[in-house]
């Protein structure tokens, strides 16, 4: 997936001179996850460069560039380090268009690796998507495979508004379904691992049904899509697994059509449970599908603790927990 993301930036930079890429260690080195490797060499130091370690500076300058006709695609090294930029993202980028009535706009992408699964402890594992979906004016995207990552990233760069692009780092080098004790596999053999060359987009705000089923709808995104598929496999429950892909704006039609069909729904995310994006999804399902529901909507999420280091797999909502929720929902 890391190559697909790099490829997405490469395509966008090649087609549009106003696309610039910067962030901590992204220039010569190509980023700590190597997402920008080779871009400086190819497009020059003024199109891809190292930023000082100042997340507020990275986003603040990107806003200035975006307002002045560029399309910056900046990297925050880990989502856990975006907080110094939170002011710039939520109070500025999100509202430039609204408060100037379109006099100024802010077409920019902020990429950040998210999620756990790499024993990164509390400062390399967080999933702060709900801190962005709560903010009017932002779009929030979470890809779960190389094909989508590239297509969504190009769409995000071309979008006229600021997009938060959250990359589940545990998926960078291969699909991960939460069975951490099984051998690691790469994207090579995975159907979504195939990435077309050149320009294509995956439209924002469109969910994708990853597995059709009739028993229960699972709403997921990022790493949890793979976990949900594994849980369906492990339990033999005929779940319909939906990859939301874009959290904001969300694809309500796909969600409601599925839940009306299955009559049951569980929501899965890695972020902490309370006030997580799952709460929004559960509320939407209750509002729009109440009379079709045969069981309460369940949420499976990270516990309401900081992301621990040694207890990573106790914290991570793996296939066993998702499977248990599926079973309980079917029994309700």
């Amino acid at each position, binding site marked *: 997936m890391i190559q697909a993301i790099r490829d997405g930036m490469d395509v966008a930079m090649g087609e549009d001179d106003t696309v610039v890429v910067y962030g*901590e*260690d992204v*220039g*010569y*080195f190509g980023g*700590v996850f190597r997402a920008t490797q080779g871009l400086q060499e190819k497009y020059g*130091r*003024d199109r891809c*460069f*190292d*930023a*000082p*370690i*100042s*997340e*507020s*500076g990275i986003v603040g300058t990107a806003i200035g560039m975006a307002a002045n006709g560029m399309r910056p695609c900046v990297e925050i090294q880990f989502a*856990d*380090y975006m*907080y*110094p930029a939170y002011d710039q993202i939520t109070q500025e980028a999100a509202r430039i268009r609204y408060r100037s009535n379109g006099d100024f706009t802010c077409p920019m992408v902020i990429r950040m690796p998210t999620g756990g699964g790499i*024993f*990164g*402890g*509390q*400062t*390399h594992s967080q999933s702060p998507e709900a801190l962005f979906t709560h903010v009017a004016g932002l779009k929030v995207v979470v890809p779960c495979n190389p094909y989508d990552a590239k297509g969504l990233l190009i769409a995000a760069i071309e979008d006229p508004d600021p997009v938060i692009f959250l990359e589940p780092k545990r998926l960078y080098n291969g699909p991960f379904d939460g069975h951490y004790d099984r051998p690691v596999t790469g994207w090579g053999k995975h159907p979504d691992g195939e990435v077309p060359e050149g320009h294509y987009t995956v439209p924002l705000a469109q969910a994708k049904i990853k597995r059709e089923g009739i028993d229960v709808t699972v709403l997921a995104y990022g790493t949890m899509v793979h976990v949900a598929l594994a849980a369906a496999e492990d339990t033999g429950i005929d779940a319909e697994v939906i990859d939301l892909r874009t959290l904001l704006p969300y694809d309500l039609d796909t969600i409601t059509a599925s839940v009306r069909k299955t009559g049951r729904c569980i929501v899965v995310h890695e972020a902490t*449970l*309370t006030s997580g994006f799952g709460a929004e999804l559960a509320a939407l399902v209750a509002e729009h599908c109440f009379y079709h529901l045969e069981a309460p909507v369940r949420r499976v999420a990270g*516990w*309401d*603790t*900081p992301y*621990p*280091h*040694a*207890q990573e797999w*106790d*914290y991570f909502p793996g296939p066993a927990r998702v499977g248990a929720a599926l079973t309980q929902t079917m029994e309700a």
Partner: protein
Amino acid sequence: MPKPLSLHVPEPAVRPGGVPDFSGVHIAPAGAVDRPPVDVDPGEIRDMAFSVIRVLNREGEAVGPWAGSLSDEQLIEGLRHMLLLRALDARMVIAQRQGKTSFYIQHLGEEAVSTAFRKVLEKGDMNFATYRQAGLLIADDYPLETMINQIYANSEDPLKGRQLPTLYSSREQGFFTLSGNLATQFPQAVGWAMASAIKGETNIAAGWIGDGSTAESDFHAALVFASTFRAPVVLNVVNNQWAISTFQGIARGGVGTFAARGLGYGIPSLRVDGNDYLAVHAVGLWAAKRARQNLGPTLIEYVTYRAGAHSTSDDPSAYRPKEESAAWPLGDPVIRLKAHLITRGVWSEDRHIQLEAEMRDTVITAQKAAEANGTMHSANRPSARDMFEGVYAEMPPHLRRQRQETGV
């Protein structure tokens, strides 16, 4: 027609494949920089932010007005601390490769900074360190086994497996709980010091930050609070030339120095040879005295070099020449202190080799003891129960419910 503008993006002097070049690093000879009284008017010592205070010269002699702050015994103890830290690092880097821990951060080349500075502090003073100042713990005799328990996240890990390896915490050692988020702790150090002043106590605080992290707003927030309230704090900037793959010119910008950042805030700002144990101690002592005499903050830039990788996740050969470390003009802190002790007539090659072996054995003994308590992936590690505890003073009902759900 005006000429079109173009963007300036700084680059280090050389990249892999090039010949290391430190001709841009200007180093004053040892002994050349004055030692003003601690109550000096900051306006009079502005030039100190652009020089480098050094005590040890090429011959291994201690020279100039900053020499003489340590006895033979204290210097030998300093050498012992640096070697112990170096031995611990070497073993833990291997332990990480063996899967006994997930992650480790070493100090190679920077051992003098934290070990010497620890010796200017007193009981009750508080450090707000970064991950690269474990020497503060070593030089305060924090048990090695406890450190390794934390690194291994085993059953005796004092932080219960919650924190990334090397992000220690020990109030007893004057070592504030370490954050993984850069720069956040610089203002906290100032606040700790302000509290000491408000309460009318006598203890001081020390903040720590890397060259790269000085770009964060929190660095500047710390300086303005320290300056305005004349907080009894020593603000330490460790300039090891690199921030992961990013050379110090990206955070520094323009010309100037990191020490010079303090000048705009009216804070006395000194630069010191960070690979010179004696100079680090003497300058730290000067700054600590200022704080203790209620004269306010001091900013110190330690000029050093990160000889090793950023962390076990990093391979520096991708962005800087391998030979760069050997070409670093300020040398190696251990070799320099050793040479000085030999010049002083209180040390020998043989005793040095003996001490190295002794330090290695000390680490191995502690490591074995820690391994008996488990390593990263062994069965006796902190439990899921430990994960739920300590989020709040008292566990709220929703968390209790979640814990029950996991059955622990």
